C-alpha cells in the first residue's frame, strides 16, 4: 500500500471509529429527547440545558462528593455521570410539576395548535433561564472532568501489515459503551416493565389511556424525568472528554433534533440510531469538508433528511375528513 493510500485509509478508519463512538453518545441524548416527545408530543427546547446540567451535576458528584477519590479515575466518571442523571431526573420532575403540567396533556388536546405555542414558548423560556442561570451559578470558565482517560488512547495496529495505526481515545470509547448500555436499559424498561407499558399507552392515546385507568399525568411526569435524566447521563459522558460551559446546550440540541427526526419522531429506539448516524455524518464529513463546516454538514444532512423523506419519517395516518 502506498503511503498516500495508507493515510486515506487511516483517516477514514479513524473518522469512522470516532463517528461511531461519538454517535453512541449522541444516540443516548436523542433517546432522552425522543422519550419526552413520543409520550408528551412536546418539543423540549430546554433539552440541551438538561445535557448541560448533567455535565455540571456529574462534575459536582465527581469532585465534590468524593466519587473521584472513592472510585478512582476510571470507574468514577461513569458513576458520576449516572448519579448526575439521577440529580437531573429530580430537576425534570420539578420542571414538569411546576411548569409543563399546566400546558400539556388532555387539557390542550383539541385546542388551537394542540397547545404547541405555549409549550414551545415555555421550553424556550426555560432554556434561556437555565443556560443563563447556569452562567450565574457556574461561571463562564470552561470545565472538564479530566481523568487520565481523557488524554490517553489505546493504539490499534499496525493494521494491514503497513503503518496504519488507529488511536482509540479511552474516554470516548468508554463513554460509548456506557451510552450503549444505558440506551439498552431504557429500551428494555419501555418494552418490558409495567411502567414502560403505561408510558406507551399514554403516548399512544392519552384519552383512551385515561379510560383504562392510567394516570396520564403520572406517565408524563415520569417520561419527562427519565427523558431529562437520560440526556443528562449522556452529558456526563461528554464531560469526560469535552470541555463545557453553561451555553453548551445549543451545540448539542441540534444534534438531538436531527437524530430524533432522522430516527422518525416518536420512535425511541429509532432516535438512538438517528443519533449514531449524525455522529457518523459529522465525523466523516471532516474527510471532505473543512473542520469548521462539521456542524454545517449536520444541518445540511438534517435538512435533506426532513425534506426528502418526510413521509417515511412521519408515520401518522391521513386525517379523517
Amino acid at each position, binding site marked *: 500500500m502506498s503511503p498516500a493510500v495508507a493515510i486515506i485509509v487511516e483517516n477514514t478508519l479513524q473518522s469512522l471509529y470516532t463517528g461511531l463512538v461519538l454517535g453512541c453518545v449522541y444516540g443516548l441524548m436523542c433517546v432522552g429527547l425522543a422519550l419526552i416527545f413520543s409520550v408528551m408530543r412536546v418539543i423540549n427546547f430546554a433539552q440541551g440545558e438538561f445535557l448541560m446540567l448533567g455535565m455540571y451535576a456529574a462534575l459536582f458528584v465527581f469532585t465534590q462528593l468524593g466519587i473521584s477519590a472513592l472510585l478512582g479515575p476510571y470507574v468514577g466518571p461513569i458513576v458520576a455521570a449516572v448519579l448526575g442523571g439521577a440529580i437531573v431526573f429530580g430537576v425534570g420532575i420539578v420542571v414538569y410539576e411546576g411548569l409543563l403540567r399546566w400546558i400539556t396533556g388532555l387539557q390542550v388536546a383539541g385546542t388551537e395548535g394542540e397547545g404547541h405555542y*405555549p409549550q414551545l414558548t415555555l421550553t424556550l423560556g426555560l432554556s*434561556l*433561564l437555565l443556560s443563563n*442561570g447556569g452562567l450565574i451559578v457556574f461561571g463562564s470558565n470552561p470545565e472538564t472532568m479530566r481523568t487520565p482517560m481523557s488524554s490517553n488512547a489505546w493504539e490499534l495496529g499496525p493494521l494491514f501489515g503497513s503503518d496504519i495505526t488507529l488511536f482509540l481515545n479511552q474516554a470516548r470509547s468508554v463513554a460509548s459503551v456506557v451510552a450503549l448500555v444505558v440506551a439498552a436499559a431504557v429500551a428494555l424498561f419501555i418494552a418490558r416493565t409495567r411502567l414502560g407499558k403505561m408510558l406507551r399507552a399514554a403516548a399512544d392515546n392519552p384519552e383512551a389511556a385515561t379510560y383504562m385507568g392510567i394516570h396520564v399525568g403520572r406517565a408524563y411526569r415520569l417520561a419527562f424525568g427519565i427523558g431529562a435524566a437520560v440526556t443528562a447521563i449522556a452529558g456526563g459522558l461528554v464531560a469526560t472528554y469535552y470541555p463545557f460551559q453553561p451555553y453548551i446546550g445549543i451545540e448539542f440540541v441540534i444534534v438531538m433534533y436531527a437524530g430524533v427526526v432522522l430516527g422518525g419522531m416518536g420512535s425511541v429506539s429509532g432516535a438512538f440510531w438517528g443519533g449514531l448516524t449524525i455522529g457518523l455524518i459529522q465525523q466523516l464529513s471532516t474527510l471532505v469538508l473543512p473542520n469548521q*463546516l462539521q456542524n454545517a454538514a449536520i*444541518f445540511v444532512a438534517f435538512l435533506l433528511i426532513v425534506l426528502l423523506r*418526510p413521509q417515511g419519517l412521519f408515520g401518522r395516518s391521513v386525517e379523517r*375528513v
Partner: protein
Amino acid sequence: MSRALAIIVAGAALFLGATWFVQDRYYQLMFTLVPIWATVGVAWNIFSGYSGLMSFGHAAFFGIGAYTVALLLVKLGLSPWFGIVIAGFAGALAGVVIGFPTFKLRGHYFALAMLAYPLALLYVFEWLGFQEVALPMNRETPAAFMQFSDQRIYVLLAVVLLVVALAINVAVARSRFGLSLLAIKQNELAAMGAGINPRRWKLKAIALSAALTAIAGGLYAVVLLIVTPPAVFGMLASAQAMIVTLFGGIATVAGPVIGALILVPLGETLHAELGSRIPGIQGVVFGAAIMIVVLLAPEGILPWIQARRARRRGADAEEALALDAATFVRASGAAPDSGAPILLAVNSVAVRFGGLQALHNVSFEVRKGEILGIIGPNGAGKTTLFNALNGFIVPSPGSVKLDGRELVGEPPFAICRAGIGRTFQVVRAFARLSLLDNVVVGAFSAEHTDGAAYARAREAIARVGLAGLESQLASSLTTVELRLMEIARALAAGPRLLLLDETLAGLGASETEHVLKVVEAIRREGVTVVIIEHTMHAMVRLADRLLVLDHGEVCAVGDPATVTSNPAVIEAYLGKKWAARAAA
C-alpha cells in the same frame, strides 16, 4: 386613514417625542433596538402568526439582511441606503428558496427544519471568513452612507421601518391575504376545499416576512456598525422575534410592539446595570418573564387584556337563530326532466386504502339542476366518494368530468374553482373567525377584489338564512348554524355543483326542515346538488334521484320510490329478514 393606522402613527410620534429628550447614547441605542426588534416580531408574526407555521429560523433572514448591507458597503462601497433595499430583496428571495422545499413539512417538522437554516448559515459565514465585519466610517459624506452623529436619527429610521411593517400588517390582516392564511392555519383541508391554494399564500407570506426581517437586519448592522455570525444568525435572534410576539400576543398587530417595548428595555437595562456583576441576568429574567406569561396568559399579554375587558363588559345578549318552522313544501316542477344535460360524469372510480377497497368501479352521472341523494350504510364509501370528487383523494383508476373537463389529479382548490363546492361531515369551521370571515374565505376564489368578495359572502349568508349573525364567532354558533355556514361558504365560491356531506346529521326536526328548504332554494337558483344522508325519510322528500352505495360499489340508482323498494337496497340497510318481508 383608518383608525388602526391613526393609532400606529400616534404611537410612533409619542415614541419619537420621548426619544427627543434622551441624551444618553446608551439609551438612544436602546430606543433604536426596540423598534428594530418590534419590526422583526411583526415580520415573524405576518408569517408564523397568521399561517400557524412556527418559524424558529427568522435569524436566517435577519442575518442575510445584516450581511448584505455590511458586505455591499465593505466590498463594493455601496451605501446602506441602497444596501437595505437590496437586503429586502435578498431576504424575500431567501424566503422563497427556503419556503419552497420546507412547506412540504408540517407542524413540528417544519419548526425544526427552520431552525437548521440560520445555524447552518452561521457556520458557513464563519468558514467564509466573515467572523467580524466592521462597517467603515465615511468621513466626507456620512449622511449618504447612513451615518449620523446624532443617534436619534437612527431611532427615526427604525420607527419609520416599524410603521411601514405595521401598516403592511394591518393591510394583510384585513385582506384576503391574512384571512386566507388564517383559514389555512385553522383548517388547511377546509381552506383547500374553499378554493385557497395554501402553498401560494404561504410563499407570499414568507417572502414578505423575510423581506421585512432582512431590512430590519440591515438597519441593525448600520446601527451597531459590526456584524458577527452569532449575533445575527444565532439562536437568540430567532428566539427574540418569537419571544416579543408570543409575549405581546400572537396574530395581533400590536402584540410584537408591546412585547418589544417591555422586553427589550428590560433585558438591556438589566444587562447594563447588573451585567458585569451578574452575567446572564438578562437571559434569566427574559426566560422567567416568558414562562410566567405563558402560564398566566398563554395567548400573550394583549389577548389576555382584551379578554378581561370583554368579560367585564359582559357578553352581549346572543341572538338566537329563529328558524322558520313552516312546513317544507316540495316545489313542484323544480326537478329537471331526464333530458337535462350531464354536469358531472363519474367513470369507474376506484379508491384503495392499503388492503381496503374503499370504492370499486363507481360510475354515475349528475344532471344539471337535479338533487342527487347518496345513501348507504356506514363505511359504504360515501365520504370517500366526495373526497375523490373534490380532489382530497386521487382515485386510481377513475375519471371525474365536470362539463367534460377532467378533474382527476387536480388539487382541491383548483377543483373548487372549477365549480365543485363541498361541506364536511364533521363541520370544518375556522373557529376563531367570524361567520362573515368564514364565508368570505370561500368568496375569495370567485372575486378579485376584497369588497366584491365580502358582498358575495353577505349574499351567501342571506341565502342560507343566517343574515344578522355575520359578526358572531364561528365557535359561538350552534350545530345547525355551523352547517348552514358551511353551505354558505361553499356557495360563496359560486359552485355549479354542491356536495353536501351529512348536512342533516344530528339536527332536530325543525332545523332539518329549514336546511331542506335552503337546499331546495339553492337548487332552484340553478346549483346542482349531491347530498349524502343517512335518514331515508328526508332524502325521499328532497332528492330527485337516489344513488345507493354499499361496500364501495353502486348498488342502485333511480328515482326514490323505485330505489327504496329495491330488495338489494333494503337488504343493505336492514338485513335479509327485512328484505324477505318487503318482498312478501
